[in-house]
C-alpha cells in the first residue's frame, strides 16, 4: 500500500480526501490506480501525451521523481507519493 498525498487544490476531485491509499510498485502504477478511483484527477496530472504536467511536481518520500526515474521511479511498500502543484498566492 502506498499513501498518495493530495494537495488542497485537488481535493475537490478526491471527495475532500487529503490522503488516498493505492497499490502500485512505481509512481506510474500508483497514479494510474489513483486516477481509476478519481478519474477527474487525470487531466490535472497528465497532459494529452500522458506526460506529467510540468507545473506539477511528484515526490517519493522527499525525492523529486524528475531527478530519478520519472514515472518509473519505484515506490516502496508503505511509502508516500506527494503531489505538489505550483501555487502563487500571497
Amino acid at each position, binding site marked *: 500500500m502506498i499513501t498518495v498525498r493530495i494537495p488542497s*487544490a485537488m481535493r475537490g476531485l478526491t471527495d475532500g480526501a487529503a490522503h488516498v491509499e493505492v497499490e502500485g510498485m512505481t509512481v506510474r502504477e500508483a497514479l494510474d490506480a489513483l486516477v481509476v478511483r478519481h478519474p477527474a484527477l487525470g487531466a490535472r496530472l497528465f497532459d494529452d501525451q500522458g506526460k506529467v504536467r*510540468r507545473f506539477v511536481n511528484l515526490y517519493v518520500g522527499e525525492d523529486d521523481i524528475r531527478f530519478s526515474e520519472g514515472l518509473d521511479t519505484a515506490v516502496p511498500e508503505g511509502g508516500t507519493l506527494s503531489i505538489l502543484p505550483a501555487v502563487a498566492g500571497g
Partner: protein
Amino acid sequence: MSGFGFSEEQVLRYSRHIILPHVGGAGQRKLLDAKVLCVGAGGLGSPIAMYLAAAGVGTIGLLDFDRVDLTNLQRQLLHDTDDVGRPKVESGMERLRAINPGVDVITHDTMLTSANAMEILSGYDIVVDGSDNFPVRYLVNDAAQMLGKPLVYGSIFQFEGQATVFLPGQETPCYRCLFPQPPPPGAVPSCSEAGVFGVLPGIVGSIQAVEAIKLITGIGTPLVGRLLLFDALEMEFTTVKLRWDPECPVCGKSPTVTELIDYEAFCGLPPRLGEIV
C-alpha cells in the same frame, strides 16, 4: 553593549535578542544594518514586514501597487479597517513605524516589472517574496539570481503553504529549478477565486521572517535545498528535497536567460497595461 553602537533605548528594545545565545549584540547589529525588500504587502507581506520591523531590521522596503480592500482584512494585519481604499504601502508603513519607529521604511507604490526590478532589488541585501501571481514570482527569482541576492520564498493556496530559500548562483536550486514552467493561465485559481484560510499566510509569512533573520544574522541552518510544506487542515509540516538543475535556464551551467524577459508572455498572459519590457 559597548562596541555595537546601540542607544540605551535600543539596548532595552532588543534586549531579548541581545541576551539570546547565537544572536547577541553582534547579531542585533547585523539586523540594524540590514536592508530587506518585501515584495507584496498583503497576506504574506504582513507578518514578514511586521516581524522584521519588530526585530529591528534597519531598512525595510515595502513594494505593492494595490489599495486596501475590505476583503483583505481577514488576513492582512498590516492594514486596518480605516485603511480601506488607501495604498497598501502607506498603511503598511504606518503600521511598521508604530511597531518600531527606528526602522527606515521605504515604500515602492508600484508594480514590479522587468523595467524596474533590477533597480529596486539592487538597493537591498535580501528579497522576501510575498507576491501573489506567477509572473512576479518568476521575475523576482530571475532578478534575485542575476543580482546575486538571497530570496526567501513563500506561497499559499487555500489551506496549504510552501516556503524555502533560494540562494544565488550554481549548486543550489532556484524557483525555476523547482517549477521549470508556470501553469497555463486559469489552471491555478487565485486567492480571490478560490478563497484562503486567513491564518495561513500568518504561519508561512512568519516562517519567511525566520529565514530572513537567520540569513541576516548567519545563525542556524537556512531552509536551502528543502521545501517546507504546511497543511493547516491536516496540521502537517513536511519537507521535500529541492535539487539544483544543471539545465536551469537561469542558474544552470549554461544559462540561456541572462536578462529579464517578458514574464506575462512567459506565463501565457497578455502584456500589462503600460508596462515597458
